[in-house]
């Protein structure tokens, strides 16, 4: 794990959205490192800022109503300061993205072949013939056996799994170093999910790309991720290698997430839920432990005033010291909540 492996280094990133002329940070001081040949999973509830983080990295936010501050260092350039034209050179060629819903993410009026070929056209100087060859090769690479047929088809003629394979072919067309996968399996049914995840892993073995996997599905994380960063209310609250995190989750939020996974052998017929809701962007208190309101049974004194990430074991970081004394309500009172 030396620094030469580092592909992307995010430092103190703030991404804010304009709401009535004030910017509210949806990503609030995130620092992260993505290494070569690594799958880094970003986990969190809806609205925690994980997708915003992804769009900031690839520069897909709406420039008029979004403010990106901080450092996103990639190949000695700060992506956060690039102009739209400069970013166009990076997008698709060095950083690419896979989206959640492959049907809406593909142009309904354009043939599959043309959609894959498009990024080759803008980022390489291949001839038309070469590009077509490359499209066939890409389709085979993502496990589509009859590329000559699929290139002529339209998105609606393919199944969900096939479409996502096409999306992946588009993403890897120019051999990018970083692939951002934003909930790549959420819209697919379970049997297809694992096929797509296997495909991602296989492709990574071939390309050594760094993959940033945005998901809320802990099952997916366990299956493919190398490292995990858990986000809550715009901050990373815990970061650890995947095995470490699953075996020894520390932060009350992470533990609550694991606790809320339905268990088949549970005696109680009720689901464990996390009390309260994710605070809205506008009303979010910007100081103190942001998770404190949802573990209200703990005294205020256990939280830090300005919580920072502490390294509790090598590579395992936890925000706020409240984790040291955290217990579930059920563990204290003996009743389930």
């Amino acid at each position, binding site marked *: 794990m030396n620094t030469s492996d580092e592909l992307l280094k995010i430092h103190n990133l703030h991404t804010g959205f304009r709401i009535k002329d004030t910017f509210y940070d949806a990503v609030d001081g995130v620092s992260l490192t993505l290494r070569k040949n690594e799958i880094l999973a970003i986990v969190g509830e809806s609205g925690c800022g994980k997708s915003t983080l992804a769009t900031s990295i690839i520069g897909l936010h709406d420039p008029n109503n979004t403010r990106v501050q901080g450092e996103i260092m990639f190949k000695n350039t700060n992506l956060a300061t690039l102009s739209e034209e400069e970013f*166009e050179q*990076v997008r*698709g060629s060095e950083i*690419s993205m896979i989206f959640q819903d492959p049907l809406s993410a593909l*142009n309904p*009026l354009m043939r599959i072949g043309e959609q894959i070929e*498009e*990024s080759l056209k*803008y980022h390489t100087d291949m001839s038309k013939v070469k590009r077509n060859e490359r499209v066939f090769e890409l389709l085979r690479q993502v496990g589509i056996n009859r590329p000559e047929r699929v290139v002529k088809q339209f998105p609606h003629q393919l199944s969900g799994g096939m479409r996502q394979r096409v999306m992946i072919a588009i*993403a890897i067309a120019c051999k990018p170093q970083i692939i951002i996968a934003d909930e790549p399996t959420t819209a697919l049914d379970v049997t297809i999910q694992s096929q797509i995840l296997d495909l991602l892993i296989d492709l990574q073995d071939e390309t050594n790309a760094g993959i940033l996997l945005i998901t809320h599905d802990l099952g997916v994380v366990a299956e493919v991720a190398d490292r995990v960063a858990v986000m809550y209310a715009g901050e990373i609250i815990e970061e650890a290698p995947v095995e470490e995190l699953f075996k020894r989750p520390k932060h009350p939020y992470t533990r609550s997430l694991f606790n809320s996974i339905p268990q088949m052998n549970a005696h109680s017929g009720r689901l464990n839920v996390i009390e309260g809701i994710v605070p809205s962007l506008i009303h979010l208190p910007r100081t103190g432990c942001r998770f404190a309101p949802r573990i209200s049974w703990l005294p205020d004194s256990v939280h830090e005033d300005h919580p920072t990430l502490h390294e509790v074991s090598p590579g395992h970081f936890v925000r706020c010291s409240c984790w040291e004394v955290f217990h579930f309500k059920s563990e204290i009172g003996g009743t389930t909540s």
Partner: protein
Amino acid sequence: MWKTILRRLIIMIPQLFVLSILIFIMAKFMPGDPFTGMITPETDPTRIEELREKAGLNDPWFVQYGRWVGNALQGDFGKSYTFQRDVSDIIGERAINTFYLSFLSVFLLYLIAIPLGILAGRYHSSRLDKTIILYSFITYAIPTFVLALVFLYFLGYQLHWFPTSGSVDIKYEEGTWGFFWSKLYHILLPAITYAILGTTGIIQYLRSEIIDAKAMDYVRTARSKGIPMRKIYTKHIFRNSLLPIAAFLGFTITGLLSGSIFIETIFGYPGMGQLFISSIASRDYSVITALVLLFGFLTLLGSLLSDIIMSIVDPRIRIE
């Protein structure tokens, strides 16, 4: 696809049959008849009655209808009471005039509306967009006859830039270039008037389609591929946004063949719209029924045409 088209055409037969009965009855419900207008204090009422009897107007409606349908099936729509000529001849002459006018109108309409709609959508909420919106609302608010009269008065009577009525100058032989130019010259002002006033729908529709398309996931995908925004507009957004407009073309074309009643009447242009109004005024039953039937047929045809266009431009829709 050919099978579907044939099937749709066959389905039209009962539709047209029902339509023809309705038209026939409604035309008969109109007070008066073709001979009412000829009555003067000196007219002998028995003479009028004789004419009515001779024209078959005293028979029950279904007898009249049967006679009319029987003849119509043989291509004979009867004689116009007013013009004393075959209805099909009169409509034929008018239809060709209306066709020229409509063709130019639609051409100019799309020539104005599509670029404006695209610009408004592309530069959404900019000053340009607001100007285009303002233009489209103003032209929507102006009644056809007002603009037509203003144009006719200033550009026709005052400045003598355009002819004020008719469809062709009588001094030209048919088939010569002079004849053609004269025809074009005569339809220019009515077509411009029509085009200016008809743009609102297309501009607004196209604009909102483009604004919607901009927020689509496939546009985000295209951006993630690093395609310049300019190219995303031409290759992804515009094509998707023009789909509904293309589909609407079928209706527009056939709709226009029925002629614009106001425009043709005000500009004294001998087209179908003008013929329709004058035949209603003179209770010229045979012309009215033939015209309404034709308009009905064109509407059905327009919907078929729209479906065909849609299946050509949108791969998701295929007529099997």
